[in-house]
């Protein structure tokens, strides 16, 4: 028992953080929201070079995986920096096809960042279906390679661009490993949400430290402090659930991590908005990139209520 990231894992997250800090992700997100994908594609390649997508791809297909712990640590960083794109869906796609015939054809490109994937249940929205190279459609009949997507609708998070996949396409498998892929999707979403919450907390703490009213920093008021303390507490107790879920990959642990991280990130978003006041309510101010992401991740791949039900089901 040693429930701590080891030095190698810390070095990995540190270098990913440095890469993303230098990448001006706020600009990349805004361009991505406008459908200008070039900077996002370039960033995607560098994230892949750092080895992130390969963590979900087995060694047989040019990956380093499966390594859920490192993946979770990486997704915390992706969330902290608000990286756009179908990050979770690419991981999920890798897991969906890693035991199937087309794995050899499709996985090396995912691991290397040459292609990005989206995944959706038939009839529901696929994230970034317009830009994804691989569009996977899940239906009771199996897993299909969808022929394309419909018109794009912006999400509440404008960087999440939604399309419905067209029906039909090549049948990849009649019985893909959906429960296993969903575990990875939820783990990655939870980790990303945790990162979003940490970034919101950090930015808000900085803001209330220099914003003055009544002649003093608003962060010296107890009402403000206590909201931020509660955000910190919620995030600090979500973190071990996310990492513990990555260690065990037990369905109840993963569902618990999804509930806890998404609730903590969302509560932190509400606090961040309230404590910034009107400036936080503007699209122009960068806080909005994380605020809207927290809302979206909460619903993605299992809302808190769905995941709570899964926690109970797993124990019966």
């Amino acid at each position, binding site marked *: 028992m040693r429930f701590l990231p080891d030095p190698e894992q810390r070095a990995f997250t540190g270098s990913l953080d440095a890469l993303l800090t230098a990448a001006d992700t706020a600009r990349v997100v805004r361009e991505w929201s406008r459908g200008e994908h070039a900077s996002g594609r370039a960033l995607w390649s560098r994230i892949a070079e750092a080895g992130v997508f390969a963590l979900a791809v087995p060694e047989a297909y040019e990956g380093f995986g499966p390594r859920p712990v490192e993946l979770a640590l990486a997704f915390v960083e992706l969330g902290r920096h608000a990286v756009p794109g179908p990050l979770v869906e690419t991981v999920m796609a890798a897991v969906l096809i890693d035991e199937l015939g087309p794995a050899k054809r499709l996985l090396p490109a995912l691991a290397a960042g040459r292609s990005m994937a989206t995944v959706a249940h038939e009839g529901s929205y696929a994230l970034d279906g317009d830009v994804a190279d691989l569009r996977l459609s899940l239906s009771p009949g199996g897993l299909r390679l969808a022929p394309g997507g419909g018109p794009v609708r912006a999400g509440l998070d404008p960087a999440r661009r939604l399309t419905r996949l067209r029906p039909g396409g090549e049948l990849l498998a009649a019985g893909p490993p959906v429960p296993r892929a969903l575990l990875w999707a939820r783990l990655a979403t939870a980790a990303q949400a945790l990162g979003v919450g940490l970034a919101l907390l950090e930015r808000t703490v900085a803001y209330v430290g220099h914003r003055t009213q009544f002649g003093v920093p608003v962060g010296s008021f107890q009402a403000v402090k206590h909201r*931020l*303390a509660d955000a910190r507490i919620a995030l600090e107790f979500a973190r071990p659930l996310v990492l513990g879920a990555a260690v065990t990959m037990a369905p109840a*642990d993963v569902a618990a991590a999804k509930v806890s991280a998404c609730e903590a990130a969302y509560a932190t978003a509400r606090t961040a908005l309230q404590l910034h006041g009107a400036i936080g309510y503007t699209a122009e101010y960068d806080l909005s990139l994380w605020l809207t992401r927290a809302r979206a991740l909460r619903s993605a791949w299992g809302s808190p209520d769905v995941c709570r039900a899964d926690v109970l089901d797993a124990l019966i």
Partner: protein
Amino acid sequence: MDLTLSPADEAFRAEARGWLRARVPSAPLPSLETAEGFAAHRAWEAELAAAGWSVVDWPTRYGGRACGLLRWLLFEEEYYAAGAPGRVNQNGIALLAPTLLGHGTPEQRARVLPPMATGEVVWAQAWSEPEAGSDLASLRSRAVRTDGGWLLSGQKTWSSRAAFADRAFGLFRSDPAAEKPHQGLTYVMFGLRDPGVTVRPIGRLDGKPAFAELFLDEVFVPDEDVIGEPGRGWAIAMATAADERGLTLRSPGRFLATAERLHALWRARGCPASSAGRVADALIGARAYQLFTYAAASRFLAGERLGPESSLNKVFWSEYDIAVHETALDLLGEEGEPADGEWAQRYVFALAGPIYAGTNEIQRDIVAERLLGLPKGRR
């Protein structure tokens, strides 16, 4: 990152489980907050101690097994899973003992710890005063120098366990001229039946005398019952608070067992959908607290100091504990109302959690100022 237990740790866990399964009383003991229940819990401490289970993480020479922090956590999980009685000497074991191990003399440890381990001497705490609650450093009870020791005078209140306990520990003002309120305080131990001590039990919310007021009138404390240097009591009390209290005051085992019991209750009631989310949250919270503690213990064992992180912990478990018991009482409906019901009794106990050991408002101030770095302001 690794959550697997070594075979030796698993063997330790199995040994604890086997002993507890054989020895935990099948019917709950009478309430700890009655004379009869206090005596029964004291006898249980002696039984634990005789088998070496009362203070597993202490050094062996004082009655422990020197098993380390991780095995202490495993023991606690087994202890509460077995439905074993509450620990009547919790104040001594979790608060005074770490202070003595860190700041006491070898003579003090040898004299005080063994009878604490067996329950022969049960300890109460004497921190708060009528005018010094959250602002503990403003306390006014005095320790005045006399030949060979100190004379304590003043009033302490909300002294947990003092109605039936044997001895108490707390802070007293030994240097009224010190520049700052937290300077000039001395950490002492004294007998609750010593000459000059009057104990007036206070009924808590359900009327049971879970705490007491202490009136002290020139109570003599010999020098050997002063912990650390006179005048340095605040730093000593806070050092143990920061390092270990956050981990050892409430172990995850207690909440894992409570969440399990709530889950069982929910199922016995036919899994009502209206409570499903809250039951799930109870299970999730207990697992979060367990993993948080494993992470903190791993950092502690790797040589890191925990410091103000214990404030995160205290807010979390105290609010969690109330939420779980509220859910149980809601599930029970009118059956939950009788005051002697197990959930009702535990609910009353849980209600005090956000108040004692530093109110949750004080803990949030600590999180905001020391962990987040926000500026100090008026409280």
